[in-house]
């Protein structure tokens, strides 16, 4: 049967199992939107800004593990996706972005709403395609989904000129995707696994360092079994939170700049680091010259590029974390490491993550209360900044895919649209966006989407009237020269919420926190926001200063009680 390009696109999306597309139309995108008009399987969610569409698709993908799809018109529509694509790329999130393009004949002519989208997005997508022939369209879409969801996952962009969207041909669904040059390695090398097992079985101070790769591989159960058999303590990256239970006795906390001192000291002192689905990011390793000098390193990752990129690895294993961990666990002997644990427990006692409840309402207290009230059973999205780190420190994530945050790129304005995407994905789940007053204002326009679709998202603004993380750096490292961080002239967030049709409340005292949270937990038909007026000069601690060794953390008591 003859179909137009746009209809082929929609049919391919349907066959790939896509049920929601987030996007905004525009001149060149009209053919695609016209085809979507007839789709019975795909719900079109019209966002307010393309960045919102990208983060919603991203939030959906992080909550489910399935690819999210966003759609934008040519030119400004496509360029507005850029931050969203870069965010997903840095965190290896499967996503498909479809952008309309000016007709093939006028590409390169500075046509109205033309941008070189392929050129712009090349370094921030796993791959991208410009479809110049309708015959290539179906197979391109198949390949795009295949690339986005296999190997190290990531966003793939398809740029579709409007003449191709309007052209017609006989549609044939390509049953198979054969890509001779793209074959990610899934099965780990058996000799390397054996070598790793030998190292693990003879180690005296092993540490497991796991990250977002565990979530992508769906290997949480396998990681837990591996940790329990080897008896090794577990530290997680920011993006790994939830891939190993936060309440597990072997969990040491988050690693890195704002991680627990115990997990950083354990990494430093360890004789064997088993890194799984993590990439030795600078926020985790601190100064590389001093990083884990005594440790041998086993590194399991699906992406060979991640191995020996910044830290020399002794036993690299390229492949899928799930199957490799299963095999590795079989070959490992049951260990308890009592001496090592005695040391770790000592650190845990000496360096708890704490804060001082005296004075104005503390943001950490709010997060603890959210944890208590929800018993941890919620999907927590965050923006980027101090509130994000406090959430990572004070909320214990037991389930995979319940912590959704922009780690690699650190995109302020990510949380609200991501929460909307997550709530679309999991209508029955309790979804929070924990935010700061700065981040919240970066994509606040998307609030109306939550109202329109009756999404009962809980928005928590930890409002300190400033861009807190930068203020903290200025306080600690820039002689308190607070340049460009004051945002105390701000909208009335309660009225703003109400103007959008959401519920709004304001809380500034500890004793009101619980009651207010209980109230918004009962609201089921619209988003609800609480503007928590919190202490302005509270810091995220411990903190490893940028460029310092991970053992050289500044502690809460050094700053707040000094």
């Amino acid at each position, binding site marked *: 049967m003859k179909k137009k390009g746009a209809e082929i696109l929609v049919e391919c999306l349907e066959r790939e199992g896509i049920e929601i597309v987030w996007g905004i139309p525009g001149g060149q995108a009209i053919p695609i939107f016209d085809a979507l008009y007839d789709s019975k399987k795909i719900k079109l969610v019209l966002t307010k800004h393309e960045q919102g569409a990208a983060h919603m698709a991203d939030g959906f993908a992080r909550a489910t593990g399935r690819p999210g799809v966003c759609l934008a018109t040519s030119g400004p529509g496509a360029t507005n996706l850029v931050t969203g694509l870069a965010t997903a790329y840095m965190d290896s999130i499967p996503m498909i972005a479809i952008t309309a393009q000016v007709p093939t004949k006028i590409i390169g002519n500075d046509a109205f709403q033309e941008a070189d989208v*392929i*050129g712009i997005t*090349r*370094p921030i997508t*796993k*791959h991208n395609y*410009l479809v110049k022939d309708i015959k290539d369209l179906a197979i391109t879409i198949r390949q795009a989904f295949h*690339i986005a969801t296999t190997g190290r996952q990531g966003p793939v962009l398809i740029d579709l000129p409007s003449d191709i969207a309007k052209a017609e041909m006989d549609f044939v669904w390509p049953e198979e995707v054969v*890509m*001779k*040059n*793209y074959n990610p390695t899934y099965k780990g090398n058996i000799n390397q696994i054996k070598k790793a097992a030998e190292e693990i079985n003879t180690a005296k101070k092993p540490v497991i360092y796991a990250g977002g790769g565990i979530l992508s591989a769906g290997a949480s159960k396998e990681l837990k079994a591996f940790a329990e058999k080897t008896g090794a303590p577990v530290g997680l990256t920011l993006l790994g939170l939830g891939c190993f239970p936060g309440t597990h006795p072997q969990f040491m906390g988050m690693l890195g700049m704002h991680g627990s001192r115990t997990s950083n000291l354990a990494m430093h002192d360890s004789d064997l680091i088993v890194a799984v689905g993590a990439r030795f990011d600078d926020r985790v390793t601190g100064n590389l010259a001093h990083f884990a000098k005594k440790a041998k390193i086993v590194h399991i990752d699906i*992406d*060979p*590029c991640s191995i*020996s*990129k910044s830290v*020399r690895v002794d036993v690299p294993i390229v492949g899928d974390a799930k199957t490799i961990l299963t095999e590795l666990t079989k070959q490992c002997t049951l260990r308890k490491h009592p001496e090592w644990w005695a040391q770790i427990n000592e650190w845990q006692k000496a360096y708890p993550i704490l804060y001082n409840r005296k004075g104005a309402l503390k943001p950490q207290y709010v997060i603890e209360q959210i944890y208590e009230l929800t018993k941890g059973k919620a999907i927590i999205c965050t923006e980027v900044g101090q509130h994000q780190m406090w959430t990572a420190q004070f909320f214990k994530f037991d389930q995979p895919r319940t912590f959704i945050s922009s780690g690699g790129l650190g995109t302020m304005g990510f949380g609200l649209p991501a929460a909307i995407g997550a709530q679309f994905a999991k209508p029955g789940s309790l979804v929070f966006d924990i935010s700061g007053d700065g981040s919240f204002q970066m994509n606040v326009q998307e609030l109306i989407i939550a109202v329109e679709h009756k999404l009962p998202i809980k928005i928590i603004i930890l409002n300190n009237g400033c861009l807190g993380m930068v203020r903290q750096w200025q306080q600690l490292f820039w002689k308190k020269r607070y340049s460009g961080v004051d945002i105390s002239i701000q909208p009335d967030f309660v009225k703003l919420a109400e103007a959008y049709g959401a519920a709004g409340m304001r809380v500034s005292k500890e004793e009101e926190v619980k009651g207010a949270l209980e109230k918004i937990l009962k609201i089921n038909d619209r988003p609800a926001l609480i503007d928590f007026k919190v202490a302005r000069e509270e810091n995220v601690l411990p903190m490893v200063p940028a460029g310092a060794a991970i053992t050289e953390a500044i502690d809460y008591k050094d700053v707040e009680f000094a």
Partner: protein
Amino acid sequence: MKHTISVLVENKPGVLARVAGLFSGRGFNIESLTVGETEDLAVSRMTIVVGGDDMILEQVSKQLNKLIDTIKVIDMTDKQFINRELALIKVSVNAGNRGEVMQVVNIFRGKIVDISSKTFTVEVTGTDDKINALLELLMPFGIKEMVRTGAVALTREWQKEDPKKTS
């Protein structure tokens, strides 16, 4: 250390930009890059000469391999390979030194491919060492213009056995 990397890629638009972007995006400097068709019209071969320590080179190779359009990456540096570059050099001459310049060019098995009253244009092929040596000798006469293609390379069919295995 200098590495010569041969990359087989799909012969289609945008692939060169992907490869070049991969280097520039990571701050790796390309010394030379040549691209051309191969025996298979669907495949192009890029020969890239790049400097850097082993860890950077390992990363470059892996990143090249990761590109969807890459078919094969061969780091020639640890193999025997044939390496050639072509240069065109426009050198100033006068009645007094034409003979001397021709002699130098002949010794390097170069060819004079264009001639004017004041210049010779010399064509020479060889390894970059050979071309550098010729350039050095022509420098005193005055080089007006020059262009080099960058290295192209193929591995030798017969490879000496890995010394580690034989010893």
